[in-house]
């Protein structure tokens, strides 16, 4: 009787039951899906991080120049939300245009371009210009605020 029970135990301990197998397979499946998603997300971050930094640097450079242009402008006109026309005190006109591939600044000296594929839109807010940067990473647009000294001093509003 005792020998029979012992041989039964040995036979059972040599193999897995179907429940154990399914449980292990389920754990492997979940672990596999999680690790694949983690791998894909990691690769996406590694791939996009330099591009994101390059875009940010490009926006910083163009915003520095736009800040100076808007600050001294006598008037700010927006024919559409992707074009800015600034009248400077010396009657010169500076035109900014945002296309899908780059940003172009045109004045009497010629054109200057900043490559960026971020969607930029301009709007007038009181005595300032606001540049909206749409981003697919966030549900909220990023906004850059450019005040105008001449319009602020004269108290002009749109």
């Amino acid at each position, binding site marked *: 009787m005792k020998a029979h029970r012992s041989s039964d135990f040995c036979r059972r301990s040599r193999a897995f039951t179907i429940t154990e197998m399914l449980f292990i397979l389920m754990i492997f499946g979940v672990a596999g899906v999680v690790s694949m998603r983690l*791998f894909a997300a990691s690769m996406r971050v590694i791939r996009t991080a330099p591009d994101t930094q390059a875009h940010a640097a490009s926006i910083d450079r163009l915003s520095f120049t736009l800040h100076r242009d808007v600050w001294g402008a006598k008037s700010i006109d927006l024919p559409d939300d992707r074009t800015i026309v600034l009248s400077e*005190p010396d009657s010169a006109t500076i035109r900014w245009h945002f296309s899908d591939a780059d940003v172009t600044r045109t004045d009497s000296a010629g054109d200057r371009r900043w490559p960026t594929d971020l969607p930029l839109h301009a709007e007038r807010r009181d005595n300032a210009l606001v540049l909206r940067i749409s981003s697919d990473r966030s549900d909220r647009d990023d906004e850059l605020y450019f005040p105008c*000294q001449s319009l602020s001093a004269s108290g002009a509003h749109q």
Partner: protein
Amino acid sequence: MTARSFDRSSHIDSRRGGFVLLIALAMFSVVSVAILALGLSMSADARRTFDRARRSQLDQLLLAGTDDARQHLSSPHAGDTWNTQLPHSLSEQAATLQSTIDPASDPGAGQLLLHIQARIENRSAEQIVRLAKNANGWGIVEARIPSE
């Protein structure tokens, strides 16, 4: 189980363990690089946000400086310099706002150049404003931010 079959089984187990360790290390290194890239990106974003906030504060100080200067120009003299009193919250951040009438200006002729310099901690901004006398006092003819 014979000794030979035990050896083979343990050899397979150790090979499988090595493979799993290799995969785990590769995964760990990929995730580490991703976390590092994300950290660098986030710190750059934070620095950029701080810079923008600081620049906005400096812009507001320069605008305030122009308003304040026009009240100081009842009897202007070339070379005059004054500091605008700032709110306590700004003074705590070592903020200063200084205006100087350009020494080469001739206020008597109805025109002057004003240099306004704003500073908060180690960041500063400057503008040069050309003012002309009109019926209402001094009006802005031109304002520009000098090239750095």
